[in-house]
């Protein structure tokens, strides 16, 4: 058993530079509280981990089924509001509300599926865009129950200290990313969903013709994606101790798409890279209170949305596949014969010995 694990690590992780980098990165994340315990840095990192879960779940729903959802904040907001309402009216604590919030978001996924199973392409995108906005209208129309514009505040904290918050968010993130990565891994021998989802994305009609019940798998994608987005929403509400209209906002839905497409769509790790790069950049720009030119009133921090948008445009024009995929293609090369990934500096395939040139 141990020897098998060791062999797996040697063959599947150490031999592929992309995975090696991912492993080192995740191990480093565990040691960050040992290096710095500064309140603000941990705060940003916790939010990043929450948004990683959220972005990866978008990639799962939209990237893998090819159904580009513009309303992913629906799941996030449903969970945040469920968590807040359960706490406000029933007095439940985080350990109970977060799973229930995730379940509520799963049900929201089923609701969203009803139109999604009939619609495709841009139609689906726009219907999903409508969903959170409809809910937002209802929330604002009944301010007595939902708090209206101000949302529901005063939720209990996630845990006692900032450090345990950090580890909760980190472990939730690692577990969610690993599960979703495994579910979408097309080479996995354990679960078949990965290869089926790939097939649906490439050609839905052909997938149907080979006997795959595509509707069942689309439903599955929406349910899994909804569950994890809801998990992120629940943790977010308890971490910030507030569930407000911002959790359903259109900007959040678009933000998650920008993160994922920036990192690389249909790759799971692309979403992780996207959030870990773009979110800190935005935070740094917010902190960057330096005048644009000496003596001017205009600060760099006022220009942050401008700089951010310009950066997104530049990246998308020059690397339309996403940053993470672009880097991976520089680091790895697929063997033409056995389709195994190899480090790009190898001359021959590590399994079958075919020349890689």
């Amino acid at each position: 058993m141990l020897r098998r694990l060791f062999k797996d690590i040697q063959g599947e992780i150490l031999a592929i530079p992309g995975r090696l980098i991912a492993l080192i990165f995740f191990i480093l994340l565990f040691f960050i509280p040992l290096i710095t315990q500064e309140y603000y840095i941990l705060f940003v990192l916790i939010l990043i981990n929450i948004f990683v879960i959220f972005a990866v779940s978008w990639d799962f729903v939209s990237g893998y089924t090819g159904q580009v959802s513009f309303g992913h904040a629906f799941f996030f907001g449903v969970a945040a509001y469920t968590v807040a309402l359960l706490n406000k009216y029933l007095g439940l604590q985080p350990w109970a509300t977060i799973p229930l919030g995730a379940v509520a978001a799963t049900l929201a996924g089923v609701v969203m599926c009803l139109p999604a199973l009939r619609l495709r392409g841009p139609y689906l995108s726009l219907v999903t865009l409508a969903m959170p906005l409809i809910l937002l209208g209802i929330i604002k129309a009944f301010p007595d129950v939902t708090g209206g514009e101000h949302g529901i505040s005063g939720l209990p904290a996630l845990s006692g200290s900032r450090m345990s918050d950090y580890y909760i968010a980190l472990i939730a993130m690692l577990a969610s990313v690993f599960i979703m990565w495994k579910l979408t891994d097309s080479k996995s021998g354990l679960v078949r969903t990965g290869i089926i989802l790939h097939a649906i994305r490439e050609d839905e009609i052909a997938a149907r013709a080979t006997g795959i019940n595509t509707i069942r798998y689309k439903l599955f994608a929406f349910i899994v994606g909804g569950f994890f987005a809801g998990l992120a929403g629940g943790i977010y509400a308890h971490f910030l101790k507030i569930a407000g209209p911002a959790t359903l906002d259109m900007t959040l839905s678009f933000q998650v798409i920008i993160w994922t497409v920036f990192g690389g769509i249909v790759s799971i790790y692309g979403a992780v890279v996207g959030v870990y790069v773009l979110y800190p950049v935005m935070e740094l720009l917010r902190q960057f209170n330096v005048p644009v030119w000496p003596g001017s009133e205009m600060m760099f921090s006022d220009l942050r949305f401008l700089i951010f948008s310009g950066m997104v445009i530049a990246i998308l024009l020059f690397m339309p596949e996403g940053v993470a995929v672009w880097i991976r293609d520089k680091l790895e090369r697929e063997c033409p014969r056995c389709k195994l990934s190899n480090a790009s500096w190898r001359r021959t395939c590590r399994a079958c010995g075919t020349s890689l040139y």
Partner: protein
Amino acid sequence: MFQAFVVQALVTGGVYALLAVGFSLIFGVARMVNLAHTSFLMLAAYGMFYTTYRLGLDVFTAILISLVATTIIGLVSYKLFIDRIREHQVTVMLITLALATIFQESMILAFGAHFREAPTLITGYVEIFAVKVLYQHLLTIAVVAVVLLGMWLLLTKTKLGIAIRATAQDAEIANLMGINVSNVLLVAMGIAAALAAIAGIVVAPLWVVYPYMWMSPLVMIMAIVVLGGLGSIKGSLIGAFIIGLVEVTVVFYLPGGAFLRGAIALLTMVIILVVRPEGLYGIVFEEERL
């Protein structure tokens, strides 16, 4: 009350129709979802504000400058950013969204995030059936009618219109028939931006001019074009008046309607789509059918 309701519904529907026709045109021809479409409305409204109040020009020069400047901005941003990634649909959406953010932020930097107003093009009102109707409202309805009629003539009677429709039906075959597809796309983008600019010029006095004013009409016109069937101009027209009517009804007759107007208009769209997945007048392409 009822007459005011009718006028309001016509104005709202008409403005949405102007926006939705342009949005639908560019989707039909280039298969791209242009999320920056309503930001051209915002730019034109700011153009009116700037040229009249800051530069002190008269209204007709102001209209001309706003219209031409907005159209040029539309064409330049298409040529620079969108043209080369036209095949990646999701990327196009993101880039146009980023463009809209850039326009919004530039307006905040230039004029601040304050609420502004633009001059009314004509002042005064007329009483129709004992209801005061602002000339501005009548002018809006008239402009919408004239522009839409002009669009219809352009698309059906001229050579350019036929080229645009041919490209919308099948870009490859249109290319083989000797139509310069990339020029047609550029012209369609120009027309779409100009339509949005006209909408911006006529609604600038009626709505509040502020940097975020592109967001809520964007959601509405997306609902409209999906409802009418993406790429169908007739569908967008009818959809615009349906959604406009629903929105105004909710605002007039429901308590708390101002919060619910978007929600109920979108709900109408979802219901129609669930019943009829390709929209009212949508075309189902053989390869897209399921």
